[in-house]
């Protein structure tokens, strides 16, 4: 199944793209697994995700924590802590 990944702010800048469609390999079950797998995809990803604890994640446009299962996610967004308001 294809999953759309969306990146914002410095996560987007460091990875070098605002979104992409990926086929997640078997064994990627949680958000934490996804972050680990993405880091293996190149220097930009490594730079963006080197401190995974600070990365905030939304699945289908709702905040989730890193233990969340990602099966069935259409859209997963990764971004820094928010600074609106």
């Amino acid at each position, binding site marked *: 199944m294809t999953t759309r990944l969306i990146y*914002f*702010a410095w996560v987007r800048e460091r990875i070098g793209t605002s979104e992409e469609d990926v086929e997640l390999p078997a064994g990627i079950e949680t958000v934490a697994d996804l972050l680990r797998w993405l880091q293996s995809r190149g220097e930009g990803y490594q730079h963006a995700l080197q401190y995974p604890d600070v990365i905030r994640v939304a699945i289908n*446009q709702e*905040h989730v924590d890193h233990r969340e299962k990602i099966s069935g996610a259409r859209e997963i967004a990764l971004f*820094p802590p*928010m*600074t609106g*308001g």
Partner: protein
Amino acid sequence: MSAVLVPTVRIQRQDFDVAAEIAGLTQGRADIGAVVTFSGLCRDEQGALSALELEHYPGMAEAEIGRIAAEATERWPLQGLTVIHRHGKIAPGDNIVLVVAASAHRQAAFEAADFLMDYLKSRAPFWKKEHRTDGSEGGWVEAKETDAQAARRWKRPPSE
């Protein structure tokens, strides 16, 4: 029984008119005794900042602020609630965000507006990037621990 309030949430590039937004909540009714508005503006940081650029997550920004606003209407007896958040490039002195909370009495309106802003700061998907007057890249604004703490103080229901 009062009707269920549906908050107004708008994410927009253009400016807003505070007086018009208040009038939009109060016009034609006489049951509102208190309106609290909060406006957040762009500071120039002692002349160092030429603009803030606000990036947002279209779709989720509306959805998340809608969820926060709906929680506010459950926790306080509100008769009107409007939240507007701008995105794009914003110059010092210009508006960024507006919360208008209307209620029969002031305490609910004050608390709801305060809650909205604290939650919005830590949960609404917006990110500020600074543009400096000297032409240098100011970088992304860092989230403040004080904002996260401010949001945590609302964890306990107000009735307790």
